[in-house]
């Protein structure tokens, strides 16, 4: 099980760095949802289903939904070519 | 029973891996969506079916998850495809011509 944890940590770290480096807000938002996905799997691996469920609900669902609505309201959704 | 469940798990995960390979190899958004959506849907359903063979008393919740994935995954991919179409991305002309592209 150790290498599975290692793999998930690599996924989380690389997408977190991608969030920092991406110029486009919506692409960064997609990478951010992957970060919370990996965190949720990590919480399941350390046997904390309640925390994992909260992380899945808040991180993957609500925060990306709220960020997307806010970006759309602010007019920052335009993708750069 | 357990062996059948394991075989279904391997089949589902193989489809998922093939879909992700298609996600990397395909040249533009629409083809990537095709590879990702189809493979992930069937792979997830096969994995859930395999888990159902391992734990037969979980079938109700597994059925709910499978039905939900089957119903929402194509909707999500269609939404992304429509967004890509409206942003202005067109399929890369590899060969042939495009019709009804208005």
């Amino acid at each position, binding site marked *: 099980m150790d290498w*599975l944890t290692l*793999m998930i940590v690599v996924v989380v770290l690389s*997408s977190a760095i*991608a969030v920092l480096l991406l110029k486009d807000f*919506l*692409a960064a938002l*997609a990478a951010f*949802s992957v970060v919370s*996905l990996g965190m*949720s799997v990590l919480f*399941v691996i350390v046997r904390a*289903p309640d925390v994992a469920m909260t992380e*899945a609900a808040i991180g*993957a669902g609500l925060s*990306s*939904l709220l960020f*997307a*609505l806010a*970006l*759309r309201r602010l007019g920052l*959704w335009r*993708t750069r070519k | 029973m357990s062996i059948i469940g*394991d075989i279904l*798990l*391997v089949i*589902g*995960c*193989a489809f*998922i*891996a093939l*879909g*992700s390979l298609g*996600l*990397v190899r395909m040249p533009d*958004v629409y083809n990537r*969506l095709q590879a*990702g*959506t189809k493979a992930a849907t069937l*792979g*997830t359903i096969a*994995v*859930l079916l395999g*888990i159902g063979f*391992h734990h037969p008393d*979980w079938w109700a919740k*597994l059925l709910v*998850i499978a039905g*939900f*994935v089957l119903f*929402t*995954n194509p*909707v*999500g*991919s269609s*939404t*992304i495809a429509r*967004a*890509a179409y*409206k*942003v202005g991305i067109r399929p890369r002309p590899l060969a042939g011509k495009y019709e009804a592209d208005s």
Partner: protein
Amino acid sequence: MTLSVLQMIALALLVLGIGLSCLRLLLGPTTPDRVVAADTLAVITTAGLAGLASVFDNPIYLDVALVYGTLAFAGTVAIARALEGDSK
């Protein structure tokens, strides 16, 4: 919590799928490419969470998979609608 050989193969294939999708998330030239990769990763993770529930032999983890599948769909649709912009 010992896995049989077939289960180890399945887990390796699943991890390979996660790695390849994550590669597309990091490489993807345009924003829709990254959103596609995030969507595919969400579905793969739903399957993986159900598999972890089977490994841990506890049906409470299935609820995590259900909640995750539901809300990841909502997040994907929200991102795609925002990407579409207000071009009505």
